[in-house]
Each structure stands twice: as C-alpha cells, then as structure tokens.
C-alpha cells in the first residue's frame, strides 16, 4: 500500500490541527515522517529502504497498529540533497504534524537533520550515516547501521583484524579512495587502524569520482608493492578498480575493504568471478550464522516486490535495516505506551531489542554498543548468475568471530586464481 501525502491529506491535517487540538481523536493515525532519496545519487538504496518501511507499516497495521492507532508514513523525496532537509522536516513537523521522525538514507542527509532535531528535542533514528553524532553528541540520536561505538575506526576494524591474524603477517598497506564523503570517512578510519595494527602506509591517495581510467592508479599502487590494499570506492570506481587490478595484475595478500556496490546484485552479477578473493564489508549475507528470526521471511516478501519497485533484487544490504530502524521505534512506542520523545529515547538507550537484523543495543552515542560490521570474502563465484548470490558459501563471514561462517583464502591470489 502506498500512502502519499496528497493535497487532501495536507489540508485535512491542517483542518484537524485547527479544530482538533486538545481533543483526542482515537482514529487519528500515528504519523512517521521522513525524507528519503527517491531521486539523485542514492535513490537506488533510498527506494529499497522505502519499500522496507512500507512493509513494516503494513505489518504493524495488520497487527492493529501502535497504541491501537494505525501507522501512517509521511515522506518526501530528499533528492539525495542535504539542502532539502531543513524544509522537508520543518514541513513534516509543522504542517503535517508527524508524531515521529526517522532520517533518510545516508550520512549527508542525516547531518542537517540532527541539529534540527536538537532544536526541538526530538528522537531521531538514522539510516546508515557514518559518525553523524561525533560533533553533536546528541542523546536522542540513534544509528541502525551496525558499525559500533567508534564509527570510522570500527567500520574497517574487521578488515584489519582479519589481516593481522594471517601468516605471514602483512606489513604494508595502500589506502585509496574516491574524493567524496563516504570514502573520506572510511579512509580516515583505515589510517587509524593501520597505525593501531602496525601496518606501514606505503600509498595513500584519493581520486576524483569522475575518474575514467583506474589503471594508472592501480599501477602506482602496485609500484609500492603493498601487502594489503584497502579501497574505499563508490560503485563505478569499484568496478573500475577491480577491472584495473585484474588487468594490471595487482595481487596483494588482501584486497578490498570498503568498496561500495559489491553489496548489490547489479555489480555482483557483472563482475562475477572477478570478485573471488575480494574481502569487503557487509551488513548482512545469507550465511547460516546470520539467519535471525524473521529475516528470511522478510527477504522473501521483499524480493517478490523488488522487481516491480525497481530496486536491488537481493536486498541484503539496506532493506532489513530499513525495516529494523522503524521496528525499534515501534518497539519503543509500544514499550513506553507513549509518543513522548524523551521516554522513547530513554527506552531505546536502555535495552537490547529483537529485530529482524538480530539483537540491537545502542550505546551512549546512539551507535551500536558493540560493532557488528561484517567482513566477508567472495569465494567460488562462477559466471554472472544472480541466483548463486542467494546461496551461502559465496560471501563467507570472516569477522566478527561471533558470526564467522568460513575462513579466509590467503593470500588474495590464491582465491583469485
């Protein structure tokens, strides 16, 4: 069911607000407001997230809603542009009078939302933003992405943990990434980890997102002969880097780390066997260690609708978490029997919650109390078939230990063959 804020809805909201303040109307729905990237660079993930949230609202309403009231989603397209956020959320709060807000997808649209929430003391749950609360330290901000309490560092910790356990232990590292928001953060974290794990940085450079040919970069990296190559890239450069690595014959002991795009079917099927051996971050993969209650059912329903919605057909990376971030908010409302922002924030801070992405517990800064960023290795990929990515054993979890489902093929060249 798609519920869009039509003109009628807006007018009726205003009318209700005018005549009905103070008088409780039992049938009035609980409104959850947010902006979401439905156009622009991150629209692919934004649309997938929206689909998940609509599924959540449907599920909740089927069970009688929250506090006996129906849940209604009120959302606008943020166009992946931070500049739209202040107007969108002010409209949601002042005109549409939403009861609860969550963020849109991505660091850059969460950043302008936090100060706005702070001005009004609202609780806000974020969807995949990196280190957003570092500067604000806002007590009512929560992040569903399972990075951990120290975001930029925890983001790539798994990669370095795995590397440090190998023998011979790698000694040098090349760090490379795109000139953009996410890679900037990821590379900063990787540098700290490299220092902590005693890896010498032999190459550290950025490239503009419009780079056409990656072979000169890969060759320059190869010339420094690093043991490990950490790449923080966006989808087109991810493909470019992987192609170039094969063409130039870059064969470090470990390769990958923070490549965006490998989480999704589009690149997985195109790159196929070239992915073998790459170690990369993930939030969820269909490995037996990660089959949390409800997730398989959710994914089945999601995948059935994915084609029609024009979103990633697998939906492992973002979809379950987009469901979960609404889910925790729902749990808090039910748990506190209230829409009071303070009570909801207190509830979210206080406990471990069961969601389709497993048990979620938030730390003091709103990030996950314990890091659960997965690092996986692509293994035994053959051809360009999509179905294989739904099976276990293709992206085995190496880290964290708790969820480990396989072992690293080391060095990279051995897995690549």
């Amino acid at each position: 069911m798609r519920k869009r804020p039509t003109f009628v809805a807006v007018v009726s909201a205003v009318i209700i607000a005018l005549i009905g303040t103070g008088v409780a109307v039992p049938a009035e729905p609980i409104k959850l407001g947010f902006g979401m990237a439905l156009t622009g660079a991150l629209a692919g993930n934004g649309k997938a997230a929206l689909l998940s949230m609509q599924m959540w609202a449907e599920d909740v309403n089927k069970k009688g809603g929250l506090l006996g009231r129906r849940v209604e989603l009120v959302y606008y397209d943020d166009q992946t542009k931070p500049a739209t956020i202040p107007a969108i959320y002010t409209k949601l709060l002042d005109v549409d009078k939403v009861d609860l807000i969550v963020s849109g997808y991505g660091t850059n649209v969460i950043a302008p939302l936090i100060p706005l929430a702070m001005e009004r003391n609202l609780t806000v749950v974020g969807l995949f933003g990196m280190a957003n609360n570092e500067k604000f330290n806002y007590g009512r901000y929560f992040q569903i992405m399972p990075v951990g309490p120290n975001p930029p560092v925890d983001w790539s910790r798994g990669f370095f943990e795995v590397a440090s356990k190998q023998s011979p232990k790698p000694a040098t590292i090349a760090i490379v990434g795109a000139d953009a928001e996410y890679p900037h953060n990821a590379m900063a974290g990787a540098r700290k980890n490299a220092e902590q794990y005693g890896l010498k940085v032999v190459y550290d450079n950025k490239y503009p997102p419009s780079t056409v040919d990656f072979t000169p970069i890969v060759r320059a990296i190869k010339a420094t002969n690093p043991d490990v190559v950490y790449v923080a890239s966006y989808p087109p450069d991810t493909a470019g880097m992987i192609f170039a690595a094969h063409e130039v014959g870059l064969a470090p002991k470990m390769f990958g780390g923070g490549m965006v795009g490998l989480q999704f079917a589009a690149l997985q099927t195109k790159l196929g066997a070239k992915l073998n051996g790459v170690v990369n971050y993930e939030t969820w993969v269909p490995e037996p260690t990660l089959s949390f209650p409800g997730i398989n059912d959710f994914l089945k329903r999601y995948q059935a609708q994915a084609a029609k919605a024009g979103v990633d057909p697998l939906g492992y990376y973002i979809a379950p978490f987009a469901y979960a971030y609404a889910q925790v908010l729902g749990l808090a409302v039910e748990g506190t029997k209230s829409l009071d922002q303070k009570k909801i924030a207190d509830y979210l801070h206080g406990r471990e919650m069961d969601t389709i992405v497993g048990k979620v517990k938030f730390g003091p800064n709103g990030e996950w109390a314990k890091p659960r960023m997965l690092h996986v290795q692509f293994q035994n990929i053959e051809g360009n078939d999509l179905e294989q990515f739904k099976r276990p054993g293709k992206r085995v979890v190496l880290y964290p230990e708790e969820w480990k489902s396989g072992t690293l093929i080391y060095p990279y060249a051995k897995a690549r063959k």
Partner: protein
Amino acid sequence: MKKGLPLLIAVGVLLAALVATRLVGNRYLYFAGYVIFQYVVLATAWNILGGYTGYVNFGTAGFFALGAYTATVLILAFKAPLPVQIVAGGLVSAVLGLGIGYLTLRLRGVFFSIATLALALVLQTFVMNWEYVGGAKGVSIIRPAAFPPFASYVEFLFFVMAALAVVSAMAAWWIENSWVGRGLAAIRDNEEAAECMGVPTLRLKLLATVVSGCFMGVAGAPFPYYVTLVEPVSAFSLDYAVNSLAMPMIGGTTTWIGPIVGAILLSTAQQVATVTISSELNLLIVGIVLVAFVLLAPQGIVGLVQRLAGRRRA
C-alpha cells in the same frame, strides 16, 4: 513617480517579511521562503550578466559555493557574525568574477561560458582537497540559537535573505535604468558596434561579471547556517547553475522583474513538487519548461504579458 515606485516596493517587501516573522507560526514557510528568496538573488545576479549583457555563466554553483565556503571558513575560524560572512562571501566571489572575466571576457562569449563550466569543477576539486573545511566529507555547522528580536534564527535567516533579494533587485533595477545598463544592452546586441560607439565593453563586462558574481556569493553566504552541513557535492550542485539560468529565461531576461517572476514561479513549483510529485519528473519538468520557453516564448513571461498588454492598448 517612476523612481519612487521600486523603492516603495522594496520597503513594502521588507516590511511584509518582517511582519510575517511576527505573525506566522509555521516555520516551514520560513524555510521555503528562504529558498525562494535565495533563488531570486541568484536569478537576478545571473541575469545582470546573462540577460543584460548576453554572456552565459554556467558556473553559478562555483560562485555560490565560494560564498558558502567563505562563510564557513569565517564561522570555523572566528565565529564571525552573519553580516560579515555575507559581505566577505560577496567580495570573494566578486574577485573570482573579476579574475575569470579578465581571463576570458576578451574572447567570444562562448569561451567565457566554457571557462565558467571548468571553473566550478576546478574550485570543487580544491575544496575537496581542503581539509580545514572538511574536504569531501564536509563540515557540520551549528546554527546560533536565536537572534533577537527574531523568535528563531531561521526567522532571522529568512528576513536576511528577503533583504538580500530586495537589495539585488534594486541593484538590477538601477543597472537596467542607468547608462551602465544601456551600455550592457548595446554589448548584448552587437559588441563590436558598441565598442565602436564609445562603449568601454571590456570594462562594462567586467563590472557586470563582478556585480553578478558578488550577488551569487552573497546568496551562498547564509547557506551554512541554513543547511547546517556544508559539503562540496551539494554546495556545487548543478541545481544552482540550472535554476539561475532557467529562471530568468522563463521570467524574461531583459528586465529586472523577469528573473524575479521566474524565480518565484519556478522555485515555488519545485518546492510544491518536492512535497507532492516526489520523483524524477520534477527535473524533467524543469528541462521541458526551459526548452519550451526558449523555443516558444523567447521573451519569457514578462515579454508575453507585455505583448498581451500592448495588444490590448493598440
């Protein structure tokens, strides 16, 4: 009478904006209004060079972002107050206009356009590599709590942008109706003839580029406090280039009122579309409207209205 009218309108708009901040409780209107006024400034600024002089600037985003980043630096370094940011943002962008104008304005207009396109990209690369302002990641700016007598800082920003819109419109009005504007129009019609008729074309073009760039920077300066996040991709967004060019085209390029009409119509339509249509159609509409206007109504809405009014009189 004719001289007094614009001043009267200007004072009227400012008073209305001030009264609005007293009466309207719905803060959404301030945010939406801020965006509309911001585009009034940008469209007016673009038109001083593009409409009056006939030189197409594709680099509005570069000038705008330079204003925004100048303000950002001032906030990070000195916590400078908003008026200082605006003046500084305007000055820095004006200097940029002078520089790029000096390099390319001797050539045919097209080279200037291409240079502005490249300029925005070069500037963006510099900002991306400048860690002090957060590089590619950008930097979060904390908005001051409130600015008395305004109830919230956003109301203050709204009022400031309204004032900037009025100032830029008055500047455009003055240019249009002075010897400067007549010289610029001569350049637009035929630059060679203008030069031979005694018009100091290079100096006037430079003047137009500087004023135009200055107002673009001015429009960008309050941006950090408005969004609270300054990062290169959104500060250099192509939106600013497209809109600042489309708005005068739609409104009409030869008068000061044209860009204002275009800015109000188009940015209101975009604001409404953002909260209703919510899809790529939004952008498609801008493209189609732009092409339709250039093809079918080259004088813009103002030209259409004038023609209709003229017909009635005749």
